[in-house]
């Protein structure tokens, strides 16, 4: 029997509670939870949402939610002036009152329908129904002026964030992120297409590393050292790393296979790697019954960390443009070898899942503390059982190693990806979300 994600959450026990937990009577309508449940679904049904693009949406939606609640919560500190290019948000009228749930809902409605505007007909319908239902429910019995004012404030916040997003370099995605033309660099060390999919004969989003970052200065901030020097000499480090991938896949254990599948997070078949970490955060926040403000804060930070993680990772990927294991192994070691996972259509070094998992783990550790045990039921609805972790770094380490078990990354890309993520996540963790 498959556990639903909801049922799995009920298994949470003994999780350390954060200081602020509202009683059932005080609990606001679950505005954020419901919209995030929807966007975790939309991300797998919006064709342009490859992992980097998905991470961008998670960041902007998270920041939108946070700024919507921060405007009405004096204990929260706006991210304007802290995030690159984000100017002060539209101010509320201090003489007037606002309905916080309506502000947040209006902000999320505007943000989600904008950032997921390219989703399919079912997604469009689901967004509309969610918006209609929530607007109606939250407005019932309330003063019309209050409703109008609150909705306008939420929309103004979302519009401000949306306008800010347009200049980051990632706003327009064509052909699902694949250039129409691409000529691989000459030389055996460089990436070449690895699939027989026509669209993927060019690599995904080659300029993503130039995007404006959120919390860290730019894509090259947490630069990596070069990967092991390319060589086909059996005595070389490079060959040894490729041989490790080859041998690992050939002798993969059931547990390693389960790990590879658990963290596979394929675009359009899952919430993607950044969505996986957002899902982890959502599960914990819901299990703890955290208020909307705390949820918005955490989800903004997670979104920012994974978005910066992908920009930093992509900057390095296209700097080194390294050949994938499947290409090298078939050419040098065994022409009949096949990886366990589908090799993603872009250069190898570093591992994207490793970098963004490291960034997310760094932030979540800062938020919830070290040694925070949790169970991750992200893929239960897909028939993949939940997995338990003693802390966030254990999960990030496993996510990173899953790429070796799956045969799509060398060890250097995994280990250095995690370190790059740690560096990137530290910038996010340093953001001041609360008034000191």
């Amino acid at each position, binding site marked *: 029997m498959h556990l639903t994600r909801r049922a799995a959450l009920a298994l949470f026990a003994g999780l350390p509670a954060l200081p602020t937990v509202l009683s059932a009577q005080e609990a606001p309508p679950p505005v954020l939870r419901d919209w995030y449940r*929807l966007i975790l*679904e939309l991300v*797998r*049904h*919006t*064709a*342009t949402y490859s992992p980097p693009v998905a991470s961008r949406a998670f960041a902007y939606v998270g920041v939108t939610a946070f700024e919507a609640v921060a405007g009405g919560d004096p204990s929260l500190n706006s991210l304007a002036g802290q995030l690159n290019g984000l100017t002060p948000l539209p101010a509320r009228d201090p003489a007037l009152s606002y309905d916080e749930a309506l502000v947040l809902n209006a902000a999320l409605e505007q943000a989600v329908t904008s950032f997921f*505007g*390219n*989703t*399919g*007909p*079912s997604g*469009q*319908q*689901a967004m509309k*129904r*969610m918006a209609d239902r929530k607007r109606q429910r939250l407005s019932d019995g309330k003063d019309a002026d209050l409703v109008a004012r609150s909705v306008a404030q939420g929309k103004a916040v979302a519009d401000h964030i949306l306008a800010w997003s347009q200049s980051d370099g990632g706003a327009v995605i*064509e*052909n*699902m992120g694949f250039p*129409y033309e691409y000529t691989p660099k000459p030389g055996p060390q460089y990436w070449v297409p690895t699939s*027989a*999919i*026509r*669209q993927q004969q060019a690599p995904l989003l080659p300029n993503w590393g130039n995007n404006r970052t959120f919390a860290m200065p730019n894509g090259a901030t947490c630069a990596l050292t070069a990967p092991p020097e390319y060589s086909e000499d059996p005595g070389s480090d490079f060959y040894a790393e490729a041989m490790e991938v080859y041998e690992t896949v050939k002798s993969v254990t059931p547990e390693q296979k389960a790990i590879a599948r658990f963290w596979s997070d*394929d675009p*359009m*078949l899952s919430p993607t790697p950044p969505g996986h970490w957002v899902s982890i955060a959502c599960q914990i926040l819901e299990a703890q019954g955290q208020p909307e403000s705390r949820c918005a804060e955490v989800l903004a930070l997670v979104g920012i960390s994974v978005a910066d993680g992908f920009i930093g990772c992509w900057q390095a990927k296209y700097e080194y443009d390294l050949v994938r294991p499947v290409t090298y192994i078939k050419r040098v070691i065994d022409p009949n070898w096949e990886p366990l996972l589908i090799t993603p259509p872009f250069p190898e070094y570093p591992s994207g899942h490793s970098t963004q998992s490291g960034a997310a783990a760094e932030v979540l550790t800062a938020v919830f503390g070290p040694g925070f045990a949790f169970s991750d039921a992200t893929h239960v*609805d*897909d*028939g*993949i059982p939940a997995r338990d972790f003693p802390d966030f770094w254990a999960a990030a380490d496993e996510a990173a190693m899953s790429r070796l078990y799956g045969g799509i990354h060398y060890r250097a890309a995994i280990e250095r990806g995690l370190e790059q993520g740690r560096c990137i996540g530290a910038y996010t963790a340093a953001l001041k979300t609360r008034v000191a």
Partner: protein
Amino acid sequence: MRGIFAAVALAASPALADGPVVPRFIEETASSGLESVYEGEWEYMVGGGVAAFDCSGDGLPELFTAGGASKAALFLNRSEKGGALRFEKAEAGVETEGATGAYPLDVDGDGITDLAILRVGENLLMRGLGDCRFERANEAWGLYGGDAWHTAFSATWEKGADWPTLAVGTYIDRTQEDFPWGNCTTNWLIRPEPGERRFAAGEALEPGFCALSMLFTDWNRSGAQALRVTNDREYYKGGQEQLWQVLPGAPAKLFTEADGWARLRVWGMGIASADLDGDTYPEYFLTSMADSKLQVLKAGPGKPTYADVAFKRGVTAHRPYTGGDLRPSTGWHAQFEDVNNDCRADLFVAKGNVWEMPDFAAEDPNNLLLQREDGSFEEAGDRAGVASLLTGRGGAVVDLNADGALDLVVVNRFAPAQVWRNTGEGLGHWVALKPVMPGANRDAIGAWIEVRAGEMVTRRELTVGGGHVSGQLVPWHFGLAGHEEAEVRVLWPDGTEGPWQKVAADGVWVLSPGAEPVAWRP
């Protein structure tokens, strides 16, 4: 949809030295009298099928078109042989709302074609009464029509059965409009009631992963039918493409990874099959969004393991080739047919955006991919004149005016269905074959026909199913290139190999076990 063809020894034809002959199609929608629109909201974003079959006995196929939220319609074919296409709407008893598509077949073996109509709601089996009249036969034949979003169908006659076995595919639980993902509903295998000429209660084919096409096919030429199902990954969770082993007297069983079935997850929307490489096993073309797939058996008949050769063969059909919209394509109905009669199966794909999806082409031309001598394909939809930019769904490549040049019908969503006449200019000779068997399975579904024209041997599997909710039951068409006669034989469903028999080109022949070919005179 129909299986097809292989070229075992490729004899170069001087006429083809510069590539395949591009047939010339003329759109005759406006003058034809075919007036049909597939429409409706969310529950009709998929579907939109057409069925082609002769119910008037004049040898010209009539057309049944699904209307979605509007009424379906049957159009009598009033075309002159080799002339302009003409249709006349009839009152036939099949004018139901909610139809997504249809497949013709002779359920009761009376020699009169019946019609399976898939619907949002209850499916209908319509018994053919002759002279293009039909009556509901669900109760008489014991069919529970269900109440679901029906989107796929196939039929076969299992070994020894005197009544067909049906497979019915369903899509999303339509009560879950707010959150449809992960809510695919059950597919059904509906077998004969033992000892009776009616259907038994359906067997659930679970899990269902939102099927948009199904095809009973003998994938490894073992003599046993299997059920190929293509599923829409947009809505399933934990799903994949499926192949069911369907052995007489045993519950259907999924082929698994341990059997060699490799996990594939696509936006599966349509299936076409053909033996393109001459190894006698069918290849399967799967329509999807962006890249389509062409699967070839990779490890021999012992394992259902397939490799994707769509890129290598030039049939990815991944984005528009004309019209200026560069966004990825959305493919629906697919059908292999020899549209230029050069002895090589060509491929038609109907294209169209699902429903205002900005990441995919809004103006998405249909594909007509012509097979070259080396087995690769080249796009000719624009040159042939069939590159419609309307939102295509179902279709039929079928000879509508009995001239041996295959014509084309496409059902569009929120736009009129279109029909094109193939002028036949510069095309090769052809033959069309109509196997007729005594007993229940009159149309020899499950048989294979082989045609030898000079050095070329082509073959096709006789199936009911596949495509995108579109089927046809008409004589099976073979191009003969420059050959004025051909040798033909039937490998009958019971395994009997018929003898090679000569037939003259440019005609329709009835083939029966133990008998000489007879020219068909409708």
